[in-house]
Structure formats: C-alpha cells, structure tokens
C-alpha cells in the first residue's frame, strides 16, 4: 500500500461523497458518483487489490454512472430532500 497516495485519495473520496450527498441537482449527483467510483478504483488499485479494482473500474465507470443518468432521465431532475 502506497501510504502517500492513499491519504490524498481518501481525502478526495470523502469530499466527493459529501458533495454527492449535498448537491441538489440529481444529474450532477450521479456524475459525482462517477467520480466517486473512479477514486474508489484508484484506492483499491494502490492498496494492491487489482481484481477488485478492475471490477470497480468496469462497473463504476462503465455502467453505474449510465444507469443513474438513465434513472434521472426517467424521473425528476431536482432532488426532493
């Protein structure tokens, strides 16, 4: 585990998570979720778990962002809470 990178990525992760929760516009929320997925994949890669990172990359980058956007497309864009 590369300690230096780890700290920075963790900070970015927390920031991304908090922002994703607080942002009102759901499209940006799903985009921030995409960033969150990228950072998680980086975190696992630098912790040495390559297989898991690969899955997270494929699912996070490939599909979950798209599915979120498809859901926002079919429902409202402004989050209610």
């Amino acid at each position, binding site marked *: 585990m*590369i300690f*230096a*990178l780890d700290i*920075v*990525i963790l900070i*970015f992760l927390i*920031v*991304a998570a908090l*922002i994703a929760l607080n*942002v009102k*516009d759901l*499209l*940006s929320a799903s*985009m*921030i979720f*995409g*960033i969150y997925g*990228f*950072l998680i*994949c*980086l975190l696992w*890669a*630098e912790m*040495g778990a*390559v297989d898991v*990172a*690969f899955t997270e*990359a*494929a699912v996070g*980058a*490939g*599909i979950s*962002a*798209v599915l979120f*956007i*498809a859901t*926002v*497309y*079919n*429902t*409202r*864009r402004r989050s209610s809470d």
Partner: protein
Amino acid sequence: MDSETFFIGVGLAILFLMVPAIWRMTVGPTALDRIVAVNVVGTKTAVLLVVIGQIFGQVGMFVDFALAYALLNFTGSLAAARYLHKTKAGGGHVINFEESGSENK
C-alpha cells in the same frame, strides 16, 4: 533518488493536479461544469493506474486494467451528453411523476 520515489512523486503530482477538478466539482455552478470535472478525473485516473503499476513494479498487470479504463471512461460523459441532448434546456422530455404513474396501472 531512485525510480520508486520518482514515480511516487509523479503520482502525487498527478493527484495534486486533480485538486482543481475536485474543486470544480464542489463549486461548479452548473451540472456541466461537474461533467468537466468527471472528464478530467477520468483521464487522469488512467494515467495514475499506470503510475501505480510502475510503483508496484508489474506494469504488465496494470496495463490491461488501464486499457479497460481508457475504453470505458467516456461512457459517463456520453450518457450525460445524451441526457442533455434529450432534455433540451429542461423543456423537452420532462416526465411528471403523476402522469407516468397512471400509465402503467
């Protein structure tokens, strides 16, 4: 300084260069600015993966992975573009929740 610390340095540099993207993500007035941040982070991650591979010494393993990343990275922005294209300035395809509810009763 030997190659390992150099690459950690490169990694850290790339990460610090991500800070503006994260800042753009937090501040970004419109959704589109946040999509810019996604793009920036996306491409940088591919490079970072190769850097991490180099730090660990087996670039061969991480290269597959980075290639997959490079290929899938643009789906996010493609989907966002498609969404914005379809909903044209918020008018176009706005589904109000009640009407759609009745249709599949």
